[in-house]
C-alpha cells in the first residue's frame, strides 16, 4: 500500500466515520432542531474529505471539478435547507416563527430593542 492509497483510505475512513456518527446522532436526538445540527458535519467536512480523496486518487480533472461543484453545492444548500426546516418546525409547534410576546429568547431579546408588537402580539 503506497502513500497515496493510504492517504485516500484515511480520508475516506474519517469521512465515513463522521457520516456514521452523525446518522446515529440524527436517530437518537429527541428534538428536530437538535437532529438538524447533525447534517452539517456530513455536508461540509465529509464532503470536503471525499473531494480531497478524489483529487489524490484520480487523475481525471473533469471528475475532480464535478466533485468540487458537488461539495460546494452541498455546503451552500445545507444551510438553506436547514434554515427552512427549522423554520417549518417552529411554525408547526408555535404557529409563527417569530417569538411570542412573553417568550424568552436570549439572543433575540438582546437585539430586539423596544417592543414593537401590536395587541395581537405580532409586528405591524
Amino acid at each position, binding site marked *: 500500500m503506497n502513500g497515496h492509497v493510504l492517504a485516500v483510505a484515511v480520508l475516506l475512513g474519517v469521512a*465515513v466515520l463522521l457520516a456514521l456518527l452523525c*446518522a446515529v446522532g*440524527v436517530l437518537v436526538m429527541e428534538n428536530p432542531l437538535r*437532529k438538524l445540527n447533525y*447534517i452539517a458535519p*456530513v455536508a461540509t467536512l465529509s464532503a470536503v474529505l471525499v473531494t480531497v480523496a478524489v483529487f489524490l486518487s484520480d487523475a481525471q480533472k473533469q471528475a475532480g471539478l464535478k466533485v468540487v461543484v458537488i461539495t460546494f453545492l452541498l455546503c451552500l444548500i445545507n444551510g438553506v435547507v436547514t434554515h*427552512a*426546516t427549522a423554520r417549518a418546525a417552529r411554525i*408547526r409547534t408555535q404557529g409563527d416563527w417569530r417569538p411570542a410576546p412573553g417568550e424568552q429568547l436570549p439572543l433575540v431579546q438582546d437585539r430586539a430593542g423596544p417592543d414593537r408588537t401590536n395587541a395581537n402580539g405580532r409586528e405591524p
Partner: protein
Amino acid sequence: MTTVWLTAALGLLLALVPCALTCLRGKPIERLVGLEMAAVIQTLLLVCLAEAFERATFIDLALALGLLGFGNGLVFARFLERWL
C-alpha cells in the same frame, strides 16, 4: 484503490440505516430531517461508487441528486409548515 472506494461506499450505505429508521418513526419534521440527511449521504455514496467503478456518469447522478435534494427539502419544509 477500488477496494478502498468500495469499502467507503459500504460504510456510507450503513450510514443510511439510521436515516431510514428516522424516516420510519417520529413526527413529520423529524422524518424530513432523516430524509435530508439521507440525501447528503447518498450524494457522497454516488461519488464513492463513481470512483470505485471509474464511471464518470455516476458523478453526474450525484450532482443531480444534490440539486434535487435542495428542491425536495425546501418543498417538504414549506408544506410541513402548515398543510401536512
